[in-house]
């Protein structure tokens, strides 16, 4: 065999091997990380974002929400039910879009509660008591403090932690991502990066189910 030919074949072989390796690696990563392997995944899920559900879940349900938003509160039990029905397959990611006036106040309380490990308890209490402090005609943010002990929180610590500039940064980043993703109303849902075709619980359920059938 000609030497030139041997070298030529080797070059082709090495390049093919490299390309094959790239393909195998990428498919493997996509399988392993699913949605998170997407290039823009970090716009949907930041490292600091509060999540609920198994790390192995393949369906990422991202919810841009506002603690003072009534529809968010109304959707909360529905999302929980969806997660319970599809045990281990859904990972819920909470992002903030505090569009209501002064709503970042509640986000700060929530993030401070996270430091006490009481995030979900606090969110539950907030949504349940929302009508007492977030009424549109007469918002009284201070009244929320009455209900917070029910979540088992150290209120003194909350008052200190909630003014941490780190929390303000989180809110800013979430708002910036909401803008990038064109979220103008809350709750803004994304299922594995896909927005709802139109708003509604039925649409949300269908989108979640179609993503689940893709991965499971």
């Amino acid at each position, binding site marked *: 065999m000609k*030497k030139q030919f041997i*070298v030529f074949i*080797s*070059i082709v072989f*090495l390049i093919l*091997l*490299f390309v094959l390796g*790239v393909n195998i*690696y*990428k498919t493997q990563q996509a399988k392993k990380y699913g949605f998170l392997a997407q290039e823009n995944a970090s716009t949907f899920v930041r490292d600091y974002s509060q999540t609920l559900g198994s790390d192995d879940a393949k369906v990422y349900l991202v919810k841009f929400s506002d603690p003072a938003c009534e529809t968010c509160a109304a959707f909360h039990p529905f999302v929980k039910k969806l997660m319970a029905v599809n045990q281990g397959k859904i990972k819920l990611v909470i992002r903030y879009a505090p569009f209501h006036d002064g709503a970042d106040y509640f986000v700060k309380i929530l993030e401070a509660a996270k430091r006490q490990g009481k995030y979900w308890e606090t969110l539950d209490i907030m949504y349940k008591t929302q009508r007492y402090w977030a009424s549109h005609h007469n918002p009284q943010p201070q009244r929320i403090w009455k209900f917070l002990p029910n979540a088992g929180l150290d209120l003194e610590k909350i008052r200190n932690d909630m003014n941490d500039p780190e929390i303000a940064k989180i809110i800013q980043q979430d708002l910036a991502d909401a803008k990038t993703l064109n979220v103008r109303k809350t709750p803004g849902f994304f299922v594995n990066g896909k927005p709802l075709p139109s708003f509604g619980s039925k649409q949300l359920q269908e989108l979640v189910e179609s993503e689940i059938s893709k991965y499971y």
Partner: protein
Amino acid sequence: MTTLDKASNSNWTIVFVCWIIASVSTLGSLFFSEIMEFPPCALCWYQRVFMFPLVIIFLVGLFPIDKSIIKYALPLALAGWGFAFYHYLLYSGFIPESIQPCSQGVSCSETYLDLFGFLTIPMLSLVSFSIIIVLLYILKRRLSK
């Protein structure tokens, strides 16, 4: 005449194998950094500096087979081997981390890859440089005969 041809063929094969090793190492290190996105540390870069040109040097030396290839390739391989050996010692803990040269950016002693429990990236590099050096040494002995 045939024995001379045979000898020349074997010499060619030795350089060819060197070229294959350098190419595989180069593509492999590019795979780690560009595809798997492991950031190369400072020591990795020094080893790359000596490995990447070997691909071209060996390729040029193959057509036609050039005996002076040893003169050009061996110094590069030896320098690369030195960095690889140092990196390997650092990696396996023989040299304490406190005196490692790259304190900023990527740590040189962080383990990214551990194949079969013993094959790490610095070790792969050390093995490649070692094989190339041994092959070049064999070639040198054959040519001086």
